[in-house]
């Protein structure tokens, strides 16, 4: 296990590279969900405003 984590001495480069990539992926998931949630809320708000005006 220690040998694996050491990556032949390249651990200061290999692990940050993986960390950055997976952080980007996680952020993409979070941003996408947040965008959908926000647009839904916004759409609902528009609908209720439209409803009261009618």
């Amino acid at each position, binding site marked *: 296990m220690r040998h*694996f984590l050491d*990556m*032949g*001495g*390249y651990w200061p*480069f*290999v692990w*940050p*590279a*993986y960390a*950055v*990539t*997976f952080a*980007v*992926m996680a*952020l*993409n*998931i979070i*941003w*996408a*969900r947040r*965008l*959908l949630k*926000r*647009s*839904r809320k*916004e*759409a*609902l708000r*528009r*609908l209720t405003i*439209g409803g009261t005006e009618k």
Partner: protein
Amino acid sequence: MAWTWFHRLASPPHVYRLSARLTPWLAWPAALLIVAGLIGGLWLAPPDYQQGDGYRIIYVHAPSAWMSLFVYTTMAVAAGIGLIWRMKVAHAVAAASAPVGASFTFAALVTGSLWGKPMWGTYWQWDPRLTSELILLFLYLGYMGLRSAFDDVQRADRASAVLAVVGLVNVPIIHYSVVWWNSLHQAPSLMYLGKPTMPPSMYVPLLIMLVGFTLFYGAVLLVRLRGEVLSRERAASWIREAVRA
């Protein structure tokens, strides 16, 4: 008859429902493939005879670099379709793609520079690939900047679509010019895939990662697409059911 699928693709409620239904079918295979690629790349693949274990950065760098170009192309083609056929959904695809592509371009730059440190001795070298990635990041930033400068979604869609198409025409020229420029000033770098024969235990994980990342883009795109489609529809009757569901 043959065109019905095209018309259905242009219909926002249909696209909204279809995206919701398809998302897990892309997300789960993406997750599985990426985990498999990680195991293959970090564990099963042998160390490189020259770069030792340092080369394993390729399993995140190459897919990120692939994404930066693939997403840009998808974005520009969608934008072009949106311009020509005045298709809202196509514009929504383009809008949903840009942040994904930009973030993976960023990841490609960071991982490339992390790979560069042990191979070149510095974090940054004006290597043609890294330089092209940097310019691509600027193209994404310009596209997103232009889009956000408009208040009106439709105008933002169409103006940024023109930019995306112009950018797509330019990308090969930029890449060619950067490679040409680099060849004048330094010997070509041997860092990437320079080895003619990569054993299958090395390249199979790479292929798995490439497919996994692409499916990941598909899943994120579909979620974002729903958001973008909703924000482009004003008071359409289908929204009520879609949002409640």
